[in-house]
């Protein structure tokens, strides 16, 4: 299977799993809506009955925003003009590449969100790898089966990413970068250095991400229990199949196209009526697109892996079955009970 065929197959698998996409969107809302409501309360309290709210409702009241910022705490400190339109995306991308610390509340929300992703990752990959409906109980059973494995893998990921965003980032951008530009008097040369270091950093993070992705895919498709061996198998697969990296790059390209497209349509301050609703729709469409792309990363990876080492839709483990409780077993008709096990145990 070629890179583009794997991507197309992955996109098709995600499109056929609409409920999975809807589910992760709801999961995103579950984290973001409560915090947005908290911020809404802060803003409403600060504006009170003031006429300043009129301008804030109809456009941007920058003077009020600054007054708000001067007294804000908690998530309130993140309420700045940078949240407007495409600035929000640049702000987050920049914070990602520059390893900018976020306020504790945002970091805590991100930690919970990542935890939820860890929980559902097994179910999602299982569903996308099988490329057929597994119903809710199958999805959550798979999520539960793989959660503990992915939690162990997550600890390794935490260590690796902690190293990358900690020591490696610091070495690249605090030491190498500063030393390289120490006597530089031309800004674009300094930017070229920083850009080159961003590429190095992205390659390292991307390589780690790629290996972790295939570790998860192999863990699900091959029903691996050891995450260390899954990582080793993933690394071997990536090394022996250049298409894996090519597919990853293609997915990154799609992600960048999504960003660029949003840049063209990102809503600005707008008013508080229909424009606000339209802005919300565009914003959520962007979030859905990002989620779709994230799922395609896994789906296309699974398709590629299956095409190289198995076959389409192959997953070693049977569809996980939600176990019946003992009580349910007790009320089954005697004929339906599995007496062979009882006999055997006898």
């Amino acid at each position, binding site marked *: 299977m070629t890179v583009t065929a794997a991507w197309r197959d992955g996109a098709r698998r995600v499109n056929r799993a609409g409920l999975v996409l809807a589910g992760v969107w709801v999961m995103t809302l579950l984290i973001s809506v409560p915090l947005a409501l908290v911020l809404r309360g802060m803003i409403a309290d600060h504006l009170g009955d003031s006429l300043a709210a009129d301008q804030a409702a109809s456009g941007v009241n920058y003077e009020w925003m600054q007054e708000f910022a001067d007294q804000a705490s908690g998530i309130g400190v993140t309420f700045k003009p940078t949240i407007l339109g495409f600035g929000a995306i640049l702000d*987050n991308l920049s914070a990602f590449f520059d390893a900018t610390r976020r306020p504790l509340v945002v970091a805590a929300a991100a930690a919970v969100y990542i935890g939820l992703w860890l929980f559902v990752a097994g179910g999602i990959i299982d569903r996308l790898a099988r490329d057929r409906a597994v119903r809710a109980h199958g999805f959550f059973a798979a999520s539960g089966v793989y959660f503990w494995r992915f939690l162990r893998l997550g600890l390794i990921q935490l260590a690796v990413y902690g190293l990358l965003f900690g020591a490696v980032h610091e070495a690249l951008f605090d030491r190498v970068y500063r030393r390289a530009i120490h006597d530089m008097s031309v800004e674009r040369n300094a930017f070229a250095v920083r850009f080159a270091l961003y590429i190095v950093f992205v390659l390292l993070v991307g390589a780690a991400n790629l290996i972790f992705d295939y570790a998860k895919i192999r863990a699900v498709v091959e029903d691996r229990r050891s995450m260390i061996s899954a990582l080793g198998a993933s690394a071997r697969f990536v090394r022996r199949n250049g298409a894996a990296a090519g597919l990853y790059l293609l997915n990154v390209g799609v992600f960048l196209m999504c960003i660029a497209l949003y840049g063209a349509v990102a809503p600005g301050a707008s008013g508080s009526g229909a424009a606000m609703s339209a802005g919300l729709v565009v914003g959520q469409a962007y979030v859905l697109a990002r989620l779709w792309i994230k799922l395609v990363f896994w789906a296309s990876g699974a398709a590629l892996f299956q095409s190289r080492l198995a076959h389409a839709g192959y997953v070693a483990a049977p569809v996980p079955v939600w176990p019946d409780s003992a009580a349910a077993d007790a009320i089954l008709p005697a004929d339906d009970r599995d007496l062979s096990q009882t006999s055997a145990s006898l």
Partner: protein
Amino acid sequence: MRVLAVSVCAAALVASSPSAQTAPGAISPPLSPRNANYSIAARLDPASRTITGEERIVWRNITTTTATELRFHLYWNGWRNARTTFMRERALGGSTSDANRPAGDWASIDVTSVKLVSPSAADLTASQHFITPDDDNTDDQTVMALPLPAPVGPGGEVTLDVTWTAHVPRTFARTGAIGNFFFIVQWFPKLGVLQPDGWNCHQFHAGTEFFSDYGSYDVTLTVPRQWTVGATGLQRERRDNTDGTTSHRYYQDDVHDFAWTTSPDLVERMARFEHPALPAVDMRLLLQPEHAGQADRHFDATRTTLKYYGEWYGAYPYGHITIVDPAFQSGAGGMEYPTLFTAGTRWLAPRHVTSPEGVTVHEAGHQFWYGIVGNNEFEDAWMDEGFNTFSTARAVAQVYDPNYLALRYFGGFVPWVFRDVVMARETEGNGLAGYRRAAKSDIQATPTFRYFPSTGGNITYFKTALWLNTLERWLGWRALQKIMSTHFDRWKFKHPKPGDFFAIANEAGGRDLTWFFDRVYRSADVFDYGVDGLSASQEESGFRSTVVVRRFGEATFPVDVRMIFDDGERVTEHWDGADRWKSYSYVRPSSIMSAEVDPDHVLLLDVNYTNNSKTLHPSAPKAATKWAMKWMVWLQDCLLSWAALV
């Protein structure tokens, strides 16, 4: 050829200038007392970053007091080590990053000989010593005292020959070098200012700048051949030496400082400012090659300054100005020197964002407030920085409106313009947010060098700009312009003190403003008026509406209170703002809809404008929902960015 062209242009200027110039940089008749005159010869060795210099100083005592000693600034010793007053104050303000510099990045200036030439010859080298008039920091060597063998009475004159060696630092406070870009300022042993109560020669402080007498500067600078030189004044002579260097001689009358820059990389552009009622000015721009496409933006901003400041306050008299675009990381951007200033831009500088225009207008504006009106920047920095911040915002608003907020990402390299966020002159231009955060940090009347280092700028720049703009809105622009232009005219080429400005404000403003200056200058009290209560109830005769307004801050100012009723009727009350609160009650056919204190935003120093109004039909829920939704998308994107790692 370019040098020749500059000289020719300067000569052509003579006819149109208010003061006839006989040679490049010369002005006749004198505009200033010219009592501190310097002839300097200096050589730069870029490899060792060393300057060796010799100067002849001719100083005349123009005070009524007798001088028994001379006092010199040796500014570069402020960066000699981490124990100087400059560095200690910087650390007090929270900036400690420079303390660990390698030895070669620090600066020094050592006077190697001082000889009295007249009225009698004497070698005074051994008698030089350091003093610390502002603190007891014996590690500070930024002021040198030199006892005179004989006192110099009023009208008396001394001539001295001084030689020195200086090490050019990696840039501190706009001074120094990076790569082969050298920006050399406050670089020679320089006299303080003798005043009736003695020498005014402060140590170098982290938060303040400079103060000197006016004079003529005749300076010859020797630098490597092919290196471009920009300097205060105009070039009179250029001579190639046999050792691969070139000597550039610059001259300027009626200035109180001399700054210069040199680099082999500077790109030179020329343009001219012309105006029907103001003297023409030749503009020389020395640009970094990567900013070559921004030449017109620098010229336009400088023209804006020369035009508006010229029309508002008075003419720029020198006929020439040099704009220096400093190198990346030079730290030399945004600084003023006589007839020369540094702007400051970025490789990516989007349109409709006032960079480089804002800084260019501001630093060009210092030619008026600092250059021509020479207040004491150690003690009353607000008189130039504040006046100029106000004037910059006003000039920028004339030409560059609207301009937008831009934020920078990815290490500060990539700008993004927020076209929804328009920068308002009154708040952004005057720095309201900065003032609000430090409103009580210092009383403005405190000598500036004693302001807390990290917040002093907010009082110096922003508080002054805000109270000047408040005066403009309260008295009207014509009245304020009369005050400022009278001050400019009366104190050009002199050293005004705060009381001089206040006296002119009372005189030209046509009313006693002492109470206002008591609040904004002699106090750290803040202004904060607000609507505390708003209610309406139905009675037989109609609606009874009640408004309670309150003074939350300590400072007082007369304000309007505007009530708007449901039927559109508007009622404006005038409140002297003295009491802590005041209530208004109305019986009208319609209920009150809203009340607002200072609806025209006259009092720009009000630190909380959100509480200035109340309405019975608040939009806060709508506004809060809208902004919470926008913020939610930012948060979701933030979450997705990190979830990409799962």
